[in-house]
């Protein structure tokens, strides 16, 4: 076998899904990183508990903070989901280290792109707030076609133009990890902007919104990452990546639509005009389901290629 590995410059010894790999990266491509899934599931659980605790504190103690303190508290809250996930990820990843700078870098890149590109497009150019909520139908369609397409398209671009061609992207599961990181970057940017714009948040309700946004965007990022991971290691048809972005955009639009309609509650309910917990539950279920499905699919794929003709290594 002459030619070089798809990932590094070493000579290729094996081909999988039409691509050539060196021995090391062939092994890598077949590895199943448990850490990613555990970090996701662990984070989801921790964050839900975190919200519950804050909500309880807010309800029982009713801390009387206001003004600047409220904003500072909100900003700290906005960072929590990313910190929790990154911490989890690194704990799990000790045995099979991913370059930390790379994951952090992708996270920061997501934060930057969301702030400098996505928000100006959606709030400025397209001015979503002025028309998106005109009717439920417009909200749903616009949520997918405009908000979803812009946000998920930009997540794809961020990943595709940065880490995708890097030698550090050397396992299928890496796609999901980097995707999650970029999604968290987006969520953190959105949450910070939200806190600043609102001039602070009430601890309980604010925490729900922040965690919800993070779980959702991390999940959508994960979906894109999964499609990218498959594309990197297997020859995929031309519709593969558009389908991935479309799926993420659809999930994005439908989720936020459901969150703000189903979870909205009604004016006449004297107890809760909004059911914030319904939204949080929705986000947790979504994030959990996406984690399980993506890792499940990846494992199946890895096992299939592993079980298959060990290679047509040939030559």
């Amino acid at each position, binding site marked *: 076998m002459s*030619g070089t590995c798809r990932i590094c410059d070493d000579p290729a010894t094996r081909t999988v899904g039409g*691509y050539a790999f060196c021995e090391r990266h062939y092994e890598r491509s077949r590895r199943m990183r448990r850490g990613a899934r555990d970090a996701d599931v662990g984070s989801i659980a921790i964050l839900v508990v975190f919200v519950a605790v804050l909500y309880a504190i807010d309800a029982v103690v009713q801390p009387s903070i206001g003004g600047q303190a409220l904003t500072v508290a909100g900003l700290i809250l906005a960072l929590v989901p990313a910190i929790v996930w990154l911490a989890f990820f690194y704990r799990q990843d000790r045995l099979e280290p991913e370059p930390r700078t790379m994951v952090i870098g992708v996270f920061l890149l997501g934060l930057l792109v969301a702030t400098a590109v996505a928000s100006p497009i959606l709030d*400025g150019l*397209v*001015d*979503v*707030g*002025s*028309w*998106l*909520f005109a*009717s*439920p*139908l*417009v*909200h749903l*369609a*616009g949520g*997918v*076609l*405009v*908000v979803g*397409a*812009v946000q998920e*398209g930009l997540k*794809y671009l961020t990943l*595709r133009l940065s880490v995708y061609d890097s030698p550090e992207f050397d396992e299928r599961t890496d796609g999901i990890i980097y995707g999650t990181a970029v999604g968290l970057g987006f969520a953190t940017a959105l949450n910070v902007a*939200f806190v600043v714009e*609102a001039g*602070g948040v*009430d601890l*309980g*309700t*604010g925490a*729900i*919104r922040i965690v*919800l946004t993070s779980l*959702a965007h991390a999940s959508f990022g994960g979906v894109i990452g999964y499609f990218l991971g498959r*594309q990197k290691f297997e*020859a995929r048809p031309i*519709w593969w*990546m*558009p389908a991935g*972005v*479309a799926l993420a*955009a659809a999930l994005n639009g439908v989720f*936020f*639509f459901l*969150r*703000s*309609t189903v979870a909205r*509650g*009604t*004016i*006449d*309910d*004297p107890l809760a*005009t*909004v059911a914030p917990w319904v*939204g949080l539950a929705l986000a947790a279920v979504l994030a959990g389901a996406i984690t399980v499905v993506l890792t499940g699919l990846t494992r199946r794929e890895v096992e299939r290629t592993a079980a298959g003709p060990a290679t047509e290594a040939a030559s």
Partner: protein
Amino acid sequence: MTASTLRRGSLARQRDEMRSFAAVILLVAVSLGAGLLLRSNVEGAVDRVDAGGIQAAVPAGWVVLPPAGDRLLTAYDPVDPDLRYGVSAVDAAPGTTLTPEDAAARRLRDRGQLLDGFAIVAEGPGALGGVSTYDVRYTFVDQPPGGASTPIDAIEHYFDDGALFPAERVLVVALEAPPEAIDSARPGFDRFARELADRSGAPVAFAPPEAVPSDARIASIGRPVAAPETPPAATADLVAGTVQIFMTATIGGQEQAFGWGSGTILSKDGLILTNAHVAMPSAPGLGVYEADPTPAVDPQDLVVAIVTSEDQPAVPTYRATVIAADGYLDAAVIRIDRDMDGRRITPASLDLPTVPVGSSDPLRVGDALTVVGFPGIGGNTVSLSSGRVSGFLGDDRIGPRAWVKTDAVVSSGNSGGLAANEAGELVGVPTRGPRDAGGYSLIRPIALLAGLIDAGRAGRRSVDSAYLVPSTGRERLSLDTWTDSLDACPATTRVTSFPAGARQIVAAMDHAGFASGEDFVSQWRLDGEIVYRSGRTLSQGIEQGGCIFDAVYHDRGLPNGTYVVEVYAGPRLKPLLTAQTTIGSTGGSGASLSGRIYDADSGRPIAGAVMFMLTPGTDPLAWHASPNQAQIAGYAQTDSTGIFTVLGLQAGTSYPALAVAEGYVAASGTIGPLGEGQNSLVSPVGLVKAAP
């Protein structure tokens, strides 16, 4: 495998990846395009309005106010009342001309004095469609009494209205919005402004209002409208050229006349000159001389009765539409456009007898005058009286020959009729009876009405006056009390509600900062439905005190229910007062509703959110998608603490409710039944932003 095939393989892979990349970009672009199409559909929904002679398209669901002062049209977004369109006119002084740039300079000087923090950002020539304009962008701070101050950006386009006489009148089309909303408001406003510029100067087709069903008839005749009287001179031509004009309204499916006046036929094809207080009592500027602050009610239709025989009452034959009105001069030109069944008439087919228009300038004291009309005294037939020019009367704004005084017998029904010289030419319009002028009656000389008649002949819709009084920018209003009489100032009878069968309810208001002759607009709701909306002009001496009243009246008793009056005034025609009362206790009594609207994600109050209470049976979300004024039972905006209070609701009723705020998903539900006569509280309403 050779190196070259491998390289080709690698190139092929690169090409595949580029294709995939391009496919994603294409997908996102197509999706965005579809989304923006959706957006333009949402934002493109418009209501066609016709106010102050302006026909235009405003965004669907916006509130449109009638003309007041120099504002011909005011429209605002009920969800964001700081987002508004305005159309105003700047008139050249009589005998002079005016360029858009001069008009801008004049108006901006006034604005600078009226508005806080006024600063011009940019100005210069521009264009709207094919019409050249002078454009100005400025900012100011809106400082409502007791409210939070809001910065406002404004964009104004000045252009000649292009009508008969160039450089006579400049139209100003303006957009006002909070700075963060102005860019998104631009596309809709640009469409609005361009359409207006395109239309300007083009004679408007005489589209009749809704046809009146043929079974409608004039069921009763109300009182004649107050005005003048004269001695004889008389030619059959003058009599034949005079018409009686009934002001009608359809009540309970039956058309009724609630007043009448007279008119003079100007052209064979049905152009008629009359008083504004007959044809359009709400015309801005009308009423500056009125001691009696009875509110003006515009007739829903005008019925023209023709003299067929001098010894018989005139025969209602045609229906007419106002083409041009000048409230300050109290004159209007109307056009016959339908028969009694509401079918359109071809103007050329009419061939009516006309009265030639003469000149009032040569008139001298002692000249003979003939007055023809329907005074309503001595029977309801056409009457002629003769007299002399007794003198002239001046006016601060018009000059020395504002009125011709006469001793001819002029009574209320003569209003709008004919005053002729010895040659049998129309030289004036009998406008005011002896009561106001110390035994003389007042005739408006025809010289002052030349522009109006020309506008009418050209078919140019115009409700405007060159003599309007600008607002002061310092207007304040508050409810002094509800009362049943317009006679006592301050009101002596002070009530909070009215018994069943009340014929008149009056809001007596404390005021400050108004000028004599300044216009304001009031709007009345009965159980949420708008029943009456008009512009009015304040009488002389209002600066010195006195009362501002606003009233609704019906001579057979007003319906039971909850009445709310909203009063708008000032340079931007902002709401200054909202107050409510009730008539009758059996039909349920008034109630109001308070609550708080907050951001459900942050817990913070939302200022400027709006709670709409809709008429029972309305689906709030469907209503939100296509708002309809008629289905609002009441609404209120939140203050900076997120608190709102909706007035004018009915106790015992459950209302579909909708809470909306810019950038938030609307929340809906049903609230009620509301408590008797009390302010009910609704639990706080949380709104969520979808997280884009």
